[in-house]
């Protein structure tokens, strides 16, 4: 038998009525790596997860997970995967501990092993103190942790995480990232969807950009950043006079008279920035402020899709 990657999807297509949601996407995820599907709301990320996790059938295309064909062996696939969706899938009528034990029973772990696993996960996900409470009383971060802990009871080889940090506060988000990294370090394959570029940048070995049902780019964060021209230095001036004087000295820059800014291509290293400032000083032009902008995934996203992400554009560094 041919050795297959942990996740291999080819030619996935799906429409809901007239609306084409996935327009033939191909995904390959080697075992033990983190793969991130990045895209804005409505790009088709959740649909892709639902298809690959056996919740809904694709209109066409093939999915192989952990060496099993989803079309012919759905139960083998289900035995290998764990899914934590965008909306929490916990039982509010049970306690946190009972939720984990329910999963242990459904995974047929046996009573002793199931209890041990539940206690381990409560401890590991910092839920031991809240074990006797209903998840309805948990914070958003705790709920998400319980949700993921439930997914882990069955010891899945492949985990699908659909926007695991959407709606979490920054601290809970960091905690979630730590947990995800830990899982990958243990050899679990992770398929993660997100609309946050920093999340993909932070976690993923490989990123695919999904826009309007198509993968518009795939690669490592570094590879994606190379797809677009380098960064720039943005100089801001006190008045139009200074702006125009600077534009004469530094030709090739992009002038924005309304914002009183001049953008000059630069890779942002200290020597070239210093040289640039020296030229302005020699010409006796006073600039009010300077910002170095290195390309980030926002730029990549904008360049690839023609529209920005939900994240506001942020300058990387302000001098």
């Amino acid at each position, binding site marked *: 038998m041919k050795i297959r990657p942990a996740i291999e999807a080819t030619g996935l297509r799906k429409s809901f009525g007239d609306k084409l949601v996935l327009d033939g996407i191909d995904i390959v995820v080697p075992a033990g790596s983190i793969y991130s599907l990045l895209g804005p709301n409505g790009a088709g990320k959740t649909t892709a997860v639902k298809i690959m996790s056996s919740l809904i059938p694709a209109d066409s295309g093939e999915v192989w997970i952990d060496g099993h064909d989803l079309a012919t062996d759905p*139960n083998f696939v289900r035995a290998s995967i764990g899914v934590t969706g965008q909306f929490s899938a916990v*039982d509010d009528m049970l306690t946190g501990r009972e939720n984990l034990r329910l999963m242990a*029973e459904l995974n047929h772990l046996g009573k002793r092993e199931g209890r041990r696993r539940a206690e381990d996960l409560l401890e590991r996900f910092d839920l031991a103190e809240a074990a006797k409470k209903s998840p309805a009383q948990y914070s958003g971060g705790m709920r998400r942790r319980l949700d993921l802990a439930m997914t882990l009871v069955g010891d899945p080889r492949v985990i699908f995480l659909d926007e695991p940090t959407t709606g979490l506060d920054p601290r809970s988000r960091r905690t979630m990232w730590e947990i995800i990294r830990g899982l990958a370090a243990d050899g679990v394959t992770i398929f993660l969807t997100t609309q946050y570029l920093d999340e993909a940048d932070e976690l993923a070995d490989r990123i695919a950009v999904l826009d309007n049902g198509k993968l518009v780019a795939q690669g490592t964060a570094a590879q994606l950043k190379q797809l677009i021209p380098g960064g720039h230095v943005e100089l801001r001036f006190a008045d139009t006079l200074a702006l125009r004087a600077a534009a004469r000295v530094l030709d090739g820059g992009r002038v924005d008279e309304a914002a009183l800014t001049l953008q000059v291509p630069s890779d942002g290293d200290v020597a070239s920035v210093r040289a640039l400032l020296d030229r302005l000083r020699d010409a006796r032009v006073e600039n009010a402020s300077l910002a170095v902008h290195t390309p980030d995934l926002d730029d990549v996203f904008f360049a690839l899709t023609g529209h920005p992400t939900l994240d506001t554009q942020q300058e990387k560094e302000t001098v």
Partner: protein
Amino acid sequence: MSTATIHPMSDSLTMLRRQLRHSVRNMSTLFNAVFFPIIMLLMFVYIFGGAFNVGVEYVQYVFPGILTMTIAYGVSMTAITVNNDMTQGIIDRFRTMAISRASVLTGHAGGALIRTLAGVTVITLVALLMGFEPNAEFGEWVLAVLLSAFLILGMAWMVIAFGLKAKTVEGASFAAFPLLFLPFMSSAFAPASTMPAGIRWFTDNQPFTPIIETMRGLLTGTPIGNSGLAAVLWCTGLLLAGYAWARRAYATSGR
């Protein structure tokens, strides 16, 4: 885990235990399954009953009807518990696990059965305390329990399908409304023979009347006649149609 052996029995029992936990923790299911029927029984016997002339002590006449109503109320809550599962995301977790597909639904049906039988037991004890005097022999008691269980399961599968189909919890409780309403338009509280022709036709031909008449016959010895067969046919029909509909609704939901 890379095994993919499915264990329908053990999964169904797990789901049943989950439902029983839910039942005892959810005040509104408990209220509808146990307390509401007691209130109805007290009301009908001590408040309205005095004005009704049915030829025997009113508790003697009304109890089989209240019993059937207890079943309807107990089962109706399942529409909401099923719908909660569907709308709260946990169902997607179950669907992505290598467990028996039917176990989620059989858990609900089993939960409805046990919860409602508990309500039936309590209401029977209360009726006995209030002076209800059954003249049933052992065999008739067994048949009454079997008919109760059969009716509960038949209605439960119907209600499970309602719960699966409804988009919201409000919709699910509305779909279960006929269960709560039909007992009033039956021979539960007054003999059908006392009603005007049009209503009488409806009362005679809806499922609750033959079921109640059969129950009354088994417990108090009134003639059963054709009602027994009609009751069994109604329960069988509900069970088969409800089961098929619910399985189909479950297989296609979420798409």
